[in-house]
């Protein structure tokens, strides 16, 4: 199948949104577009599986290569492996859910859905890119919509948050850019190239890797809340409108993780080995520190935002551990966290739109009043604390199991600390649920509030379906991701044996 469709479809949707008249039409178009995206993503999964089972074991499938800026060797080179397919699926789920929960948007509807769908185009483009330039392009494309979504439709100190998010992500991009420049000019003599598949074969000299790896890794790390560059996360997530929060935490942060994996680790395996202790140290700090910081939050969105810091730490930990299993786990965690956190934000958004507060202390007893919303809230929480049968468990356990394969005592210690964070997670999740949806009803006004509407229910069910599909049967995801992880790790392992 032609992967560019994944980008073209949302773009056509945005165009139609622009041409639409009235909020109803806009929503209908956005919904149709998002549904088609999901179908397309599912078809991609199917086609990918079919191709693989037909015996095509090449690293990337459905490759297409169009020349873009020929003098600079820039191509629009697309292709997917299992990891990309998983991320694309995640995107499709979150986009559709995001469109659904935003159904009640009445303020500047057209612009809202335009930006929302536009964001998804960026994410798809990022995940299908095999060319560093296009990858970078799509990474940055998302900046404008994110900024505007937060600033226009956000709440709280939205201006500050929007600025902060945009600037910090821009700083991340700047670092990535520097790294890309280094890779381009220093890899393999005069044959300048942006093509990841060409650059991958250990083409980049070790010295160059050692110099540029931190740029690329930290640059992408900022996107995925690498400690101590995570401070945009709490502010950004908490100020964003629901759908944008879902997008930010569910997809946007994953761009970083994917970049750390696909660009930093895949292209610079020696450096990845060399810097692994640093990555592990930082990610362990993020996990534990994020979890403890979450414990002290009183705003539901802050709770989820900080917990995202902690959970994304698992992604980086998995990457830093550099074993096939841990990398597989990292990708699974990305997908799982994406769905879970989107569901969480959706639930929080639904609560907020009714009660007009996100403070844990002001909520209470909502399970009785809004059973559906409270149930998905609790389920998201349970997924977050790693309940078997929901996606978080499978992902985290894969990370742990993979991390444990590293025999070094220090790494083991990091792993144990990471494991310990699941206890802290339980503490803050149960505190949050216990005080907000359980317990006595704190405000008699709440009694009259309605439960979820059809669109909200559909969004919740959709994301739950994703979570359950992974949680109940993680093997398909694992089998999907694992060969890709293998390929990335092979480079790292090979580089060790060469040394």
């Amino acid at each position, binding site marked *: 199948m032609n992967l560019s469709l994944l980008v073209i479809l949302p773009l056509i949707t945005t165009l139609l949104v622009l041409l639409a008249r009235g909020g109803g039409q806009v929503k209908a178009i956005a919904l149709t577009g998002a549904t088609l995206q999901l179908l397309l993503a599912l078809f991609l999964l199917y086609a990918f599986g079919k191709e693989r089972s037909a015996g095509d074991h090449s690293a990337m499938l459905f490759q297409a290569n169009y*020349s*873009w*800026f*020929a*003098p*600079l060797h*820039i191509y629009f080179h697309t292709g997917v492996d299992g990891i990309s397919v998983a991320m694309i699926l995640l995107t499709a789920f979150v986009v559709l859910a995001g469109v659904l929960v935003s159904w009640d948007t009445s303020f500047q509807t057209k612009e809202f859905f335009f930006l929302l769908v536009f964001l998804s185009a960026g994410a798809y483009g990022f995940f299908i890119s095999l060319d560093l*330039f296009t990858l*970078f*392009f*799509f990474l*940055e*494309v998302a*900046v*404008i919509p994110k*900024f*505007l979504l937060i*600033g*226009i439709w956000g709440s709280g100190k*939205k*201006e500050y948050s*929007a*600025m902060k998010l*945009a*600037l910090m992500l*821009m*700083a991340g991009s*700047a*670092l990535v*850019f*520097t790294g890309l*420049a*280094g890779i*381009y*000019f220093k890899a393999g003599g005069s044959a300048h190239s942006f093509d990841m598949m060409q650059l991958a074969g250990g083409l980049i000299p070790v010295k160059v890797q050692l110099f540029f790896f931190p740029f690329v890794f930290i640059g992408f790390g900022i996107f995925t809340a690498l400690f101590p560059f995570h401070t945009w996360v709490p502010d950004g997530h908490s100020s964003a409108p629901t759908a944008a929060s879902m997008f930010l935490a569910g997809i946007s942060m994953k761009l970083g993780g994917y970049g750390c994996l696909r660009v930093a680790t895949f292209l610079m395996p020696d450096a990845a080995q060399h810097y692994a202790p640093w990555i592990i140290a930082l990610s362990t700090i993020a996990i534990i520190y994020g979890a403890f910081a979450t414990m002290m939050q009183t705003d539901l969105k802050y709770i989820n935002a900080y917990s995202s810091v902690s959970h994304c730490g698992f992604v980086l930990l998995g990457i830093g551990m550099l074993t096939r299993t841990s990398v597989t786990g990292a990708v699974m965690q990305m997908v799982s966290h994406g769905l879970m956190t989107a569901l969480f934000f959706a639930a929080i958004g639904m609560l907020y739109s009714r009660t007009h507060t996100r403070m844990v202390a002001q909520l209470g007893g909502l399970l009785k009043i809004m059973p559906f919303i409270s149930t998905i809230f609790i389920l998201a929480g349970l997924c977050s604390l790693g309940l078997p049968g929901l996606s978080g468990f499978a992902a985290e356990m894969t990370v742990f199991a993979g991390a444990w394969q590293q025999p070094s005592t220090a790494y083991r210690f990091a792993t144990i600390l990471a494991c310990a964070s699941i206890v802290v997670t339980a503490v803050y999740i149960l505190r949050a649920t216990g005080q907000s949806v359980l317990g006595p009803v704190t405000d008699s006004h709440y009694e009259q509030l309605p439960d979820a509407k059809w669109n909200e229910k559909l969004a919740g069910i959709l994301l739950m379906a994703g979570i359950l599909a992974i949680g109940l049967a993680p093997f398909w995801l694992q089998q999907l991701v694992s060969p890709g992880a293998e390929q990335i790790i092979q480079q790292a392992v090979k580089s060790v044996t060469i040394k």
Partner: protein
Amino acid sequence: MMGTQFFWLAKQELVLALVIFLLLIIKTGSRTYSNTSVLNLVNALLLVNFLAGFIAPADGILFNEMFHTNTLVTIEKNILNLGTLIVSMQGYEWLKTHKHVIEFYVLLLSTLMGMFFMISAGHLLMFYLGLELASIPLAALANFDLAKRQSSEAAFKYIISSAFSSGLLLFGISLLFGTTGSLLFSDLPALLTGGPLQIFALVLLIAGFAFKISAVPFHWWTADVYEGAPVTVSAYLSVVSKGAAVFVFVYFLYLVAKPMAAAWYTILFILGVLTMLIGNLFAVRQQSVKRLLAFSSIAQAGFILVGISGSSQAGSASVVYFILIYVLSNLGAFGVASVVSALSGKESINDYKGFYRTNPFLSWVMAIALFSLAGIPPAAGFFGKFFLLFAGAGKGNYALVIIAALNMVIAFYYYLRLVRAMFFDRADQEPIPSLDLNWYPKIGLGICLVGTLLLGFFGHVYEHIYSISIPF
């Protein structure tokens, strides 16, 4: 032989000259003419002028190598033509009530002609003449808000600074003449030895260019003049005048001063870093939109210097490509500022609060233009800036690239400030009312918007520019 060749090679200048003459005739001939009809006529002529630029581009030299032209030069002139056309359309709202429309255009087009000669110059004398033709009328233009104090101050600052800078430039040229005995571009490379006097001459010449493209520390006039001059003139200064200087600068450095590449690379490095830093740092706390854009255009010059310092074909191609994009994006921003200033008289960032609610189209044009200036995709500025910095990186000076990349972050901040004011904030006082635009500015802004959004996606534009640009 010589006759036909002359017509073909200097056709852009000739068309321009015809336009100027036509305008002068109208001015002297008829006593009563309405502004709008003049504007209609001029805009039509400018369009013709722009389109004529594409007819039969030819390579060749005239006047004993004093004048040269080729496809690259033609394209560069076309870019400037495009910029002028857009400036003219966006200035419609301001000009339609102005008393001296024809004079405005005569002066404006004279400077454009000066720039053409500058670009086509094959000899330093020709270059100097072009330069002055491009500068002196601009000073008069800066004073075109005749009754405004600030306009006069701006014009005065510009003319004195400009005169001083050309004095130094001439001093440099005289030293060059003294040490080499020739001022012909094609002779000079062989005669340059890198002695102290020549280095001094080089510094002086570069300072002259740096003045025109407003690179730090030769940029001081920029912000004051941009603020004081009418917005239309500021737009023209920041885009067309700067663009022309950049074109010549590249030509001069890459072809003429090539033997002294090590020396000028150092200068460009220092100037580039300073320009980006100072430009951005000053822009950060500006309250006036025009001043903000002025410092932004200074910072952009820094990025251009980084690109030029790449010393490669990719470098020169990227510079031309960037200027093309920069013309569109900067004119998008200035264009909005210009119509807002002309119709409501408001020029401060605070005045733009709530702008999106009253003027969504203008807000989007402004926002996309700003994002393009900041280098955020899908705006074309991303591509322009990416290639510029990449060209700079090709030299292996990663410190420069990192500084540039981090400067993009600072720059992003102040562009976002304006976007924030337009989109997020609610107006504390009466917001700018919904502006009713004539279709000229609308088209002008539309061209900027569409160009800014789409230009990056057409790879062969860059490819074409690359194929004809100056190798190093």
